[in-house]
Every structure is written in C-alpha cells, then in structure tokens.
C-alpha cells in the first residue's frame, strides 16, 4: 500500500470549487505519477485553470483533499504550495511589468530582509539553473521590454528557483511560435530527466501526443476520462473533450474573389510609447473572400485590426473601403466606419464587445445605438430593441434567451454569439473578425465558423485574425502572416500548413532584415 502511495507525486480526491453560481470543479479525482509529464485537456471554461490554481493554493477548494508524495496536505495559499515543492506557470503571466527579471524571480523568495545580499545569491543560483536547463534570460531588463517567450522562461525560472518538484504549466504554448514551443518542450524534457513531475494544460492535442505520458480530460467542471497517451488517439481525445464526434471542417464551396472591397496600402501604426507596431502593411480583400491573418499574438495583428476599425489612428499609408479613401489626415472613427459598411468583431469580447453590466438586448445595440430604428425623437425604443434581440437569439441559438439577463451572466460562448449576431445582422460589406472562437467550446465553434462561411458565400469581404492556426487554415481563402509588424508571407488555402506558417510566423531567416 505505502509503495502504492509514494508512486504518486500528486493525488486529488473529490476536489470541488464553485464561483458564485458557477461550479468550476465538480468532485475532481486525479492521480499524477512521479516523474511523469501529465497532460490535461478540456474545452475553454472546463475548469482546468481553476483546478491548477487549487493545486497551487491560489484558490482554496470548497471540499476535497490533496496528497503530495503520498502525504495528505491542506494547502491554503501559494506559500504552502511552494513549500510543498509545487510551482506554476500561469496562463496569464504573473510578472510585475516595471520590475527586472531578477526582481520578479526574487519576489517572495528574497531570503534576507536586505535586498543586496539576497540579490547576489539569487543571481548566482540563477546562472546555475540557466546552464543546467538552457534557460538564459537577461536578469536586469524590465520584463515589459522582453518577449512573451522570455517572460515565460522567467516564470519557469521562478518555479525552479523555488525548488519546485512538481511543475504546472497552463497553456504554455498559446503565446509561442511553433519553434519557441519546441524549445520549451526541450526544456521540459530535461526537467523530466531530472525527475520533475510536470502537469501540462493545453488545447493542442498534437502537443499532448508529442510529450505526455498520461492525459486526463475535463468537461464542464468534471474529470471525464484518463488515458495513457500511448494507448489513445487524437480523435478519441477530441471526442472525449466535447462528448460527441467532432465534424472536422465546415463546407467551403469554391468561389472566385470578387471586386476588392477593402484595400490596405503601406499602413503603419505607431503606439503611444512611440513603438512601430505595424510596418507598411499592404493587402486587399475581395468580395466573397476570407483572408486569414496568422501570427503569434503580439506581432501587430491586434493593432492592425484596431487601426482598420478606427479604434486607433494609423500614422501612414491609406485604406480604401468601398469607394471611400481613409488616410491619417482624413481618418474615420468607428461610428463613421460602421456607416460605411464595416463591421468588427473585437478580439476580446469582455474588454470591447460587450458591456457586462448591461442587459443582453442593450449590449446588442452597442455601436448601433444611434441608428434611426432604435431611436424616437429623444428616447430609445426599448421594445424594438428587445424584440429584435429575441429574434437574433433565436437564429443564433443564444442561451438563455432572456433579453433582460445581464451580459456578464452568459457563458463565454454565448457572449461571443451575442457579439457575432450583432455584427452579422448589421449586414456589412466588410467584416473584421478577431479571435472568433477564443473562450468558446467546440460545439459553438462549429456554429460560428458556419456563420462566417455563410457571410463569405454572401459575397462579403472578411478579415479573420486568429491565433488558432486550425481555424485560419479551415476558413481562409488566403492567409497572410505577420511577424514583428510586417507581413512575412502570403499563402493560398491549399499551400498553407502548420510547418510553413510556423516558419513565416517566426519570420525565420529574415531576422536580420527586421532588426
């Protein structure tokens, strides 16, 4: 029996966690063998991060128990987790922007009360770690000046510096180029060789198959399956994730691109801090065409999208929308652009797409609140708005239907549907779509993809920005790739594949040029 126990680095029994009315984790049981790389997959919102945060003591479980190296442990805060040898790289990095890498790593593990000495010690042991695992980072640079890849290494160093024997990584590759991801996996391999137990959360089945020993699947807060990686397959995992067979791709009938509806020439965007985010980008989108914009997040796609939708101004170049020409001098704000037939599904629905405290039918007119059909002389026509919403909720199967429910109380997928419905019903000529399926589970994804495809078939020009290569490759007629603010290449639907996209995303070979 004791032998039995000690072979698990970590064991969870009946872990339950609810957030208000959300049951994020529902009696989770989990056993992680020491020295394994253990994968955890699940739709967005399935409860993965929550579970990890509980293991790491960031959240406290409502009930359930946890054993580490066979010993029952009650972990109430991260301090205790760290002491128990658990380290975590969070989905969203936990770094103080204006601190240096060194300060960030030391924070909470300074040693003495005086910084000077502890800093020296830290520096020494970090160089040590850097050598053994190939984790070089510039220790004295403020982290906000470092790439996401480097920031992630800092997070890993944070964990190792605290002598973590169990390392949790929450969607680590989400922000990395395929090449950076490979480096990461190499590092993980060395850690594994050192006997570190690794918990890897990811959406990418390919990664699961590549480096995990075992894999567990979560769905809507429950742990639904455990598999030994060697004995399972991607289709099976996908099925387990969604709970039914997944139709791989949406119908796409061949259709020649029509007249150019959106024409971008030498567009450049400089942000507030004077950094050039977009560097003379040019492309066109024709009627009935979906152009995918691929790239690792943070390489200018967001800025491009915002510039095109009038949220931020661009400093150089010009945009032709239908027969209107927009230049830095004759710029247009989002309202004007909407009137010109441009609609925009923003990347982050919580930040931009919705007003969470508003009722659903009110969020439904966001951006169109001045349209005649909603307005009497002074007052808004609530009735009209509500009815219209009800009808859209029908067509887009937004659940629950209640137009008066607070936007915040809809699930991620449904919130996304609300936004999408709004922009599609506006019947634009040009549609800009950012991350249409982020935080949406596969059922909804299919649905959303179908609607985007319908728009294309209806002869609209669509720009699709997404970090999900899958998505881009399924939907796009053409794919342009951005890296460091520049377009590094363009591929047709047929020639595109993970490999060559990855290379373009990393702008491999062209590094000097861009520098």
């Amino acid at each position, binding site marked *: 029996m004791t032998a039995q126990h000690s072979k698990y680095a970590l064991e969870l029994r009946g872990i339950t966690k609810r957030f*208000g*009315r959300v049951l994020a984790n529902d009696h989770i049981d989990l056993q992680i063998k020491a020295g394994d790389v253990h994968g955890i997959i699940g739709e967005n919102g399935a409860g993965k991060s929550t579970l990890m945060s509980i293991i790491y003591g960031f959240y406290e479980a409502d009930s359930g128990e946890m054993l580490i190296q066979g010993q029952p442990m009650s972990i109430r805060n991260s301090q205790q987790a760290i002491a128990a040898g658990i380290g975590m790289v969070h989905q969203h990095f936990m770094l103080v922007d204006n601190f240096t890498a060194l300060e960030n790593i030391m924070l909470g593990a300074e040693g003495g009360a005086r910084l000077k000495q502890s800093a020296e010690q830290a520096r020494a042991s970090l160089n040590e770690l850097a050598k053994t695992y190939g984790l070089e980072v510039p220790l004295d640079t403020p982290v906000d000046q470092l790439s996401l890849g480097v920031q992630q290494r800092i997070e890993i160093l944070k964990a190792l510096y605290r002598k973590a024997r169990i390392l949790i990584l929450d969607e680590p590759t989400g922000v990395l180029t395929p090449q950076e991801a490979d480096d990461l996996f190499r590092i993980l391999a060395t850690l594994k060789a050192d006997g570190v137990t690794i918990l890897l959360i990811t959406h990418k089945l390919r990664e699961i198959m590549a480096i995990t020993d075992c894999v567990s699947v979560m769905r809507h807060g429950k742990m639904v399956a455990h598999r030994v990686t060697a004995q399972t397959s991607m289709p099976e995992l996908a099925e387990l994730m969604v709970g039914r067979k997944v139709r791989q791709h949406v119908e796409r009938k061949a259709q020649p691109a029509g007249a150019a509806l959106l024409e971008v020439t030498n567009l450049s965007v400089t942000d507030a801090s004077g950094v050039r985010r977009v560097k003379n980008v040019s492309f066109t989108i024709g009627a009935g065409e979906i152009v995918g914009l691929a790239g690792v997040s943070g390489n200018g796609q967001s800025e491009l999208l915002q510039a095109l939708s009038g949220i931020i101004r661009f400093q150089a170049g010009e945009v032709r929308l239908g027969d209107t020409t927009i230049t830095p001098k004759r710029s247009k704000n989002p309202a004007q652009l909407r009137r010109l037939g441009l609609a925009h599904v923003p990347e982050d629905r919580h930040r931009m797409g919705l007003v*969470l405290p*508003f009722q659903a039918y009110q969020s439904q007119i966001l951006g169109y*609140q001045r349209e005649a059909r909603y307005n009497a002389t002074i*007052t808004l026509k609530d009735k009209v708005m509500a009815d219209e919403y009800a009808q859209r909720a029908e067509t887009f199967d937004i659940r629950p239907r209640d137009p008066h429910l607070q936007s915040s109380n809809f699930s991620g997928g*449904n919130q996304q549907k609300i936004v999408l419905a709004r922009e599609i019903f506006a019947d634009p000529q040009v549609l800009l779509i950012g991350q249409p399926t982020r935080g949406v589970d596969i059922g909804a994804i299919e649905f959303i993809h179908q609607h985007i495809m319908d728009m294309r078939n209806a002869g609209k020009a669509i720009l699709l920005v997404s970090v999900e290569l899958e998505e881009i490759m399924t939907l796009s007629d053409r794919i342009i790739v951005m890296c460091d603010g520049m377009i590094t290449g363009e591929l047709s639907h047929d020639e595109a594949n993970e490999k060559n996209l990855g290379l373009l995303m990393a702008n491999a070979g062209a590094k000097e040029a861009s520098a």
Partner: protein
Amino acid sequence: MKPATAQRWANLLILPTLNILTAFVVTTLVFLAIGVNPIDAAKLLVKGAFGYQNGIGYTLYYTTNFIFTGLAVAIAFHAGLFNIGGEGQAYIGGLGVGLVVLAFDGWLPAIILIPLAILAAALMGAAWAAIPAYLQAYRGSHIVITTIMFNFLASSLMVYLLVNVLGEKGQMSPETRSFAESSFLPTWSEMLGWFGIPFASSPLNISFLFALFCCFAVWVFLWKTRWGYELRTVGANPDAAIYAGINPKHIVMMAMLISGGLAGLVAVNELLGVQHRLLLGFNAGYGFGGIAVALMGRNHPVGIVLAALLFGALYQGGAELSFDMPNVTRDLVVVIQGLIILFSGALESMYRPQIQRFLSRFVKDEVSA
C-alpha cells in the same frame, strides 16, 4: 424566483437597509458616549423634522439642496467619474444667479428674470465643472484631485468678489444688496395660499418641485436616451465605448457639465428661494452631503430623493435637537453623515457574503448555457 431577480432585490433593498441601520447603531453609540439618551434624541429629531408644518418646510427645503447635489454626484458616477466638486460648483452657480439678478432685477419681469437666473446658475456651475472635466478628459489629470482643488479655488474667488467687487459698501458682512422682489421664488405657503390652504411660512419654495422634476429628467436621460446609453457605456467599459464609436472625452465633458449644472441649481433654492442675496458659504456642506445622498440612493433618482429626505430630516431635526439638548451640536449631524458615507459607501458590500449565503439557500444554481 429567478436568481437574477433575487440578486437585484438584495442589492436594491436588503443591503442598503442593513448599511443604514449599521450607521444608526454606531450613531447611537456616539450619543451614549456623550451622555445623551438616544431614544429621546430620536423622538425629538423625528418630531422636529416632521412634527409640525414649519419643521416639514425646513426638512423639505434642505432636501431640495441634497437632491440637486445628489443627482450631480450620481450622473458623474454613471460616467465613471467621481465629482467631489459639488461644493464649489454650487458656489459658482450662486455667482451666476447673483450677476444676472443684480444686473436685471431693476427692469426685467419675473417671468423672464427667474428662468434667466436659473439658467445662469446651471451654466456657471457647469462652467466650473468644465475645467476639471477638460483636464480629466484631455490631460489625464485625476478628477478627484482637481475637483477638490476647485472647491478651494471657488471659495477664494467668491470671497474676493464679494469683498472687493460685488459686496455692498458699508455693509458689515461681505454680501450683495438684497435682490428685488421680482426675483423671489414663490414659497410653499404662498403657493398653497393661492388654493386657500394655509401652510406655515418656511424656506420651502417651488424649487423643491423643480428638484423633483430634475430627478425625473435625469432618470429619462440616463436610462431612456441614447446619450444616457453612451454615458453609461463609458462608465461601465470605456474600451467598449471606443469600440462603439463613442468618444469618452466628449462623454466626460457632457457628464461633468450636467453634473456641475445640477450642483449649480443649489443656488436657485438658496438664493432665489430663501436668502434673496448673494452671500458667503450658502453652499456649506451640501456638496459633500450630495456624495452621501448619491451613495445611499444607489445613484438612482428615486433612491436619491429618499436619501435626500433623510438628510433633510437630519439637518432640520438636528437643529431642533440642539435646541433642547445643549450638548448635542450640529457636529453630530456631520458625524452621522460621515457614518452613512462610510457604511453605505465604502463598506456597502460588507454584508454581501452573508446575504449571498442566505439567498443561495433558496435559489438553485443557474444551469450553464
């Protein structure tokens, strides 16, 4: 009952009530600390505030001021702004009234003079709010601080003007000459008199009705018009506003101008209605009182009317109290004010967890979409 509705009622009724109760409990302790029997005090207070016509008149007259400043704070709040400048805006609103009336009361008839004066009050109040608003919107300086500064500036300016420019010569106190009758607002007793209903003379005048009208107007504006929609959008989520093509800068200006205008209207009640001259410190305490009122009233006109009524009663009843209880002074009302701001403002959700737990017993989980 749907969880959402249960939640709404909890927020709308249960929480505020508990908060106020807490404030009053602590007040009772203060009473005991200075050796006053709370029960007697409460009795006197209520009687003084509502016991007789003259008392009611005063209560509602104070209420009027608090409605104006409360609305001012609330409308800014919905735009995500914290206007601490009501005090100064009311003061400068008074300047507007003063200038107009002193200039025209010689020859303009009431029909024209009074609306003109009211307009001036609103405009000047708005103007005084405009500068902090501009600095917030276009220069990114923190409106809380700037409005505080502008309160200080307003009172300096007013004193300078009253002492050196507008003040009546040979007059002891720095105040202007009395306004002409044509600028007087009809008092409650006069108005009821027209219908043959007798009412004790008191400062209560028609601006109370005007204040109630403003409440209605504000309600329509915020929740029924596109401007209100845009204003609340900016308050709830500035990024979404920009995405929607709403310019937050413009909204900040709009919200603060309206806010300042409302605060300025205090001068209508005070100067046109009661004092009939421009004098120092007629605005004292109403600006900050407005914060308490808005918080207590959940930034909703109806709540604001109720909260304002409570504060009016406290002011009037408090005065009565100090009449009969020597060691109760006006400062006690200040303390109560502070406690209310503390418990229904800063500590508004102190009881939320308990309420949550209580509700969850009755309300079942919402099934995920």
